[in-house]
């Protein structure tokens, strides 16, 4: 009986910890979707590129992944800005039959990023080895992996910083204003094109941060991006577009449901659980969890 409870507790806690890190990635997506109103199918690929940057730092230069992420973030910020300015932004005025042109361009970008990385690193599975990768801490009778705990703590710090940035700084408020009413933001003197570019960069940097935190926990290969694209969609739709706290809660819920699904249903079906939640939210709760709070 007690064993069952320990197993349950361990499942819940590791699910929540992992979900926290997912939510960091999803915050990047929710910011981009909030400001640009497009589905970014390259988001997972940005995560993946960020992971490779951190991986190279660790493998070739011996930089600890938790330090390496601070190199990956600015690199991805720059990459995101360039992609937005020179590729996606060019389609804004284009008259095409399918309005999904921008989405399809993100698919193209995803292909380029994934295959570009594959060219250099092949499809091999890689992992970083740190002294603490396989360490665990004990919480009562439950054992929790150390990278999960560190990653989660860093996530909390980042979430708080992001929250402060968005509510207390002019740049952050400009981002929110642009997301909520682009024209009105321009009336107030905000350079909405520049803000859009910065937001995409910021979203990419957050993707890199989340990816780097997950690096000690996942095998790295070029196609891992798809996994994160899917997860961040689920979280973004779950939490509501453009909402940082929505993404935080959504991430926790996804992590938890995956973890419970894996333990109690089967490993194979755990992703189905997330997708089904995703569909249910799309259909029955179009504003995400945030719309519940508002009611």
């Amino acid at each position, binding site marked *: 009986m007690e064993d069952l409870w320990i197993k349950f507790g361990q499942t819940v806690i590791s699910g929540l910890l992992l979900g926290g890190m997912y939510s960091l990635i999803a915050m990047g997506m929710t910011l981009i979707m909030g400001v640009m109103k497009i589905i970014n199918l390259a988001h997972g690929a940005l995560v993946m590129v960020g992971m490779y940057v951190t991986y190279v730092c660790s493998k070739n230069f011996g930089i600890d992944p938790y330090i390496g992420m601070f190199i990956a973030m600015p690199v991805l910020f720059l990459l995101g800005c360039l992609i937005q300015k020179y590729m996606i932004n060019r389609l804004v005025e284009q008259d095409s039959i399918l309005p999904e042109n921008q989405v399809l361009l993100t698919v193209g970008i995803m292909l380029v990023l994934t295959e570009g990385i594959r060219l250099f690193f092949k499809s091999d599975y890689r992992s970083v080895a740190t002294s603490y990768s396989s360490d665990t801490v004990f919480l009562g009778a439950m054992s929790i992996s150390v990278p999960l705990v560190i990653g989660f703590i860093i996530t909390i710090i980042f979430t708080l910083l992001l929250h402060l940035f968005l*509510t207390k700084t*002019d740049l952050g408020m400009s981002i*929110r204003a642009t997301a909520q*009413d682009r*024209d009105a*933001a*321009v*009336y*107030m003197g905000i350079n909405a094109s520049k803000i859009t570019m910065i937001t995409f960069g910021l979203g990419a940097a957050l993707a890199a941060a989340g990816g780097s935190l997950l690096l000690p926990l996942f095998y790295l290969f070029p196609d891992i991006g798809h996994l994160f694209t899917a997860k961040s969609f689920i979280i973004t739709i779950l939490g509501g577009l453009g909402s940082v706290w929505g993404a935080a809660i959504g991430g926790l819920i996804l992590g938890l449901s995956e973890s419970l699904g894996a333990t109690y249903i089967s490993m194979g079906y755990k992703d189905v659980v997330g997708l089904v939640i995703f569909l249910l939210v799309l259909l029955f709760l179009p504003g995400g969890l945030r719309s519940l709070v508002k009611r």
Partner: protein
Amino acid sequence: MLKVTDIDVSYKDVQVLWDISFEVKQGEFVAILGANGAGKTTTLNAISGMLNIKKGKIEFLGKDITQIPGYKIAELGIIHVPEGRRLFPEMTVRENLEVGSLFPEAKSKRKETIKKIFEQFPILEEKQNKEAGTLSGGQQQMLALGRGLMALPKLLIMDEPSLGLAPVLCKQIFDNIKEINKDGVTVLQVEQNVVQTLQMCDRAYVLENGRVSLHGTGEELLNDEHIKEAYLGI
């Protein structure tokens, strides 16, 4: 202060304005009147740099601003309070005000300006931590006005401030705008509430089908039979 000379404006491939010319002098209260679809809002958007101007010239304080992008217009001191208020619905009242003051000068005086605005609109102080989307129509218009004032505008452009407001609230907003004008801010206003607008403005221009059809002082136009005809067809 603001001088518009012979501008033509098109939306995509459709021309909306022809040869619009008018002038707003320092400290004046000027109104633009006209029916739905006459081109009033387009005229205002042309001034605030949201549209491509094909022909003509817009000058502000002697400087040619015809081709300056929208976000730079605000910094020059032209603040546009758009039709339908266009607040940032998920930001608090205070945050909305803060977003109004992003330029160095306005930012340095942010605290004082907010204080002044709270004095003028006590209800905004009371609700400063509420999301703008939860305010009533009248309160939203006050906030839109306040947000505009945060930038310390030289020229305030008001687009249909009375839209959707009950008569009592309408009057209150008009009083507020008049007061702001008396404090030295030049005002250019588009309104459908003809008489009240004519009573409080110095001069007015009437637009019909994308052209200026009439202009004069408020008093002159109040007594002009054409106004009544244009609006009521009698």
